């Protein structure tokens, strides 16, 4: 195979288009290199975009946060801005992979690879982020993150398109968040399930709920029906039981080497309830 090391973004996009799907972009390479070794991918060439500094940024604007696609997971994990305005994303970034991987892996890569267990996805779903994509010869377009994933390792990205940035509104001061990643180890673990929760509360009354779930469906998902159940409701044990039941029905997990679908189903229910209790009643998880 061959490689291209374009100096400019425009050249990178032209190469991507010319490659007709046979040239693959590589940034951190933390998924691509193992895939290459396992012969899961066989590109004709790499387009190395790892050095494009202008796509690595965390920008705080008046109402929004914008994150460049090439921002490393380490930078996200260390960012005060992300901790302040997108805490679940900070927590997920701190638990993704391990420190060595986090120094190379990028948020764009995590989303474009689109593992059903992608760790940055559930927080971005709860934050209702938008993914901005670009390609040669066309205007940028954006898609809501809950429309971005189509299946395991499948996204809305055209084969000549790359992610430019991720945008979301800063979390309101009234909103409370929670995040939990369940794995077989404390580090270097692929999620068995992960949950990101955002609730706007008035005391124990829930005004708005957003639930992002990972590793329990062919792609990272929102639990819309469970969110609906929580909206404009007083949080009680009875409501929690109902939510715990509804979320089981919304997900579509599989059994794999890490866990059975029964275990995943049980744990989503248990952990979602615990996280809601943590937010509503300050009960430790």
């Amino acid at each position, binding site marked *: 195979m061959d*490689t291209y*090391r374009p100096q400019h973004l425009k050249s990178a996009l032209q190469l991507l288009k010319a490659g007709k799907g046979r040239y693959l972009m590589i940034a951190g390479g933390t998924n691509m*290199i*193992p895939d290459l*070794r396992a012969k899961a991918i066989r590109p004709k060439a790499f387009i190395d975009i790892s050095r494009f500094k202008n796509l690595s940024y965390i920008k705080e604007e008046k109402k929004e946060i914008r994150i460049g696609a090439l921002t490393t997971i380490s930078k996200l994990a260390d960012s005060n801005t992300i901790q302040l305005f997108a805490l679940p994303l900070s927590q997920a970034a701190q638990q993704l992979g391990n420190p*060595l*991987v986090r120094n*190379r892996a990028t948020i764009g890569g995590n989303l474009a690879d689109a593992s059903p267990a992608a760790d940055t996805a559930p927080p971005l779903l709860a934050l209702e982020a938008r993914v901005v994509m670009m390609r040669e010869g066309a205007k940028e377009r954006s898609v809501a993150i809950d429309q971005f994933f189509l299946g395991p390792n499948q996204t809305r990205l055209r084969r000549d398109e790359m992610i430019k940035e991720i945008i979301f509104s800063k979390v309101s001061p009234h909103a409370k968040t929670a995040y939990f990643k369940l794995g077989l180890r*404390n*580090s270097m673990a692929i999620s068995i399930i992960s949950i990101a929760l955002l609730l706007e509360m008035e005391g124990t009354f829930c005004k708005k709920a957003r639930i992002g779930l990972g590793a329990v469906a062919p792609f990272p998902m929102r639990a819309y029906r469970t969110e609906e159940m929580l909206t404009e409701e007083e949080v009680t044990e009875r409501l929690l039981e109902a939510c715990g039941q509804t979320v089981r029905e919304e997900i579509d997990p599989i059994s794999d080497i890490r866990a059975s679908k029964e275990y995943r189903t049980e744990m989503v229910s248990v952990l979602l309830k615990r996280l809601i209790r943590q937010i509503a009643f300050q009960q430790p998880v």
Partner: protein
Amino acid sequence: MKKDQTYWVKIHINGEWKRAEVFPEETLLHVLREKLGHTEVKEGCGKGDCGACAVLLNGEPVNACLTLALQADQQKVVTVRGLGTPDRPHPLQESFVKRGAIQCGFCSAGMIVSAKGLLDKNPKPSREEIKRAISGNLCRCTGYQKIIEAIEEAAYKLRTDPKP
């Protein structure tokens, strides 16, 4: 048969520039070990799951097996060998030896590199911070206790004795 394309890279390793001819898909680990004589960088799993191959790339600990050699072109790499010599060891190397943090030694190079990365950013790490910093390095022999103690001791030495 068409010959695979190769490229020349120039990498700054432990203080000196070195050149190698590499394939596009060749990893930094492979080039360091097979072409540049840096066999102190170990291959444990080759896929980013063990940390044995950790090196500092522009000061940051990374898995050399997950970095393409081409991505290290013109960049600065430091391996465990670059931290000190048997005559003038780095406090980390000294503490690892003295504290029993080395049994088979296979994880040690990568472990010390991760520790160096930590101490460069955080000269007074807590135990929790040390554990987090080495959470990408597996050790099958020691149970990590001595490794953590060695890093604590080295951090102390570096803070109190500016010599190295």
